[in-house]
């Protein structure tokens, strides 16, 4: 059976959308309110989907305790109640849009040892969300 197990997690963080490659005026035009200099925050929701064979002894693709601990260590602890631009090294240069956040979270979780990572979906608000399923082998990201 082809099964995907999905778990939802939450963290709260702030960010500012500002690109060093754009002028001040362009930044304001492109990012609007999201370019306000002191940043602003969201309650993010992260859906993590994994797949794999169901262990006959446990009935599980992966033990949720293992998945929860891995996501907590790789994503929740480094991101929760943080300013993404300054507290997460990956966003020193890269703009912390939710697109880039989604890719960063996927890359942090792809080495989960107990199952195959299928998809990361990030809700920035209840009205917008982003999904990433990884890049084909050999491409850079």
């Amino acid at each position: 059976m082809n099964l995907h197990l999905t778990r939802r997690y939450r963290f709260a963080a702030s960010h500012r959308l500002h690109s060093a490659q754009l002028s001040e005026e362009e930044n304001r035009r492109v990012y609007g309110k999201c370019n306000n200099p002191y940043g602003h925050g969201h309650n993010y929701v992260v859906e993590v989907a994994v797949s794999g064979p169901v262990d006959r002894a446990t009935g599980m693709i992966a033990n949720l305790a293992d998945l929860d601990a891995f996501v907590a260590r790789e994503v929740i602890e480094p991101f929760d109640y943080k300013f993404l631009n300054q507290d997460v090294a990956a966003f020193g240069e890269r703009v912390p849009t939710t697109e880039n956040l989604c890719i960063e979270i996927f890359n942090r979780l792809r080495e989960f040892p107990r199952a195959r990572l299928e998809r990361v979906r990030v809700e920035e608000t209840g009205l917008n969300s982003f999904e990433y399923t990884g890049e084909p082998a050999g491409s850079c990201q």
Partner: protein
Amino acid sequence: MVYLTRKIEFSASHLYHNPAFSAEENRRVFGKCNNPHGHGHNYVLEVTVAGDPDPATGMVLDLKELKEILQREVTDRMDHRFLNYEVPELSGKIPTCENIATVIWTLLKPEITRGHLHRVRLYETPDLFVDCYGEGPAGGNGAEASR
């Protein structure tokens, strides 16, 4: 191709316990889910059927028919039941969300004769769900027979 989804809810209890494990191992692997008298959830089931609308009716399949299938195959079997002891299809299996979704897929697959069963999504809680696509290539969108 159009994907039609119908949602139902059922409430049931279960516990996780493998008789081949020691008591200590059961507690370690299954945690709170190993509590001996079980516990319950309000399960939410989303069943997605894929197909082309019939030109005469504009429908992939009659929702009434799907509702009856879900009532008979899922609600009547599982609603307000203790899954470990009262659902023979789960006998000998740990009634995890993975195994329940697989049983539901297996029960529904032969019953859906208009269009084809694309996905069974079973929510154990709003923060935990399993998608079953049947026998497809691992990691892919298994319901697409051509893939």
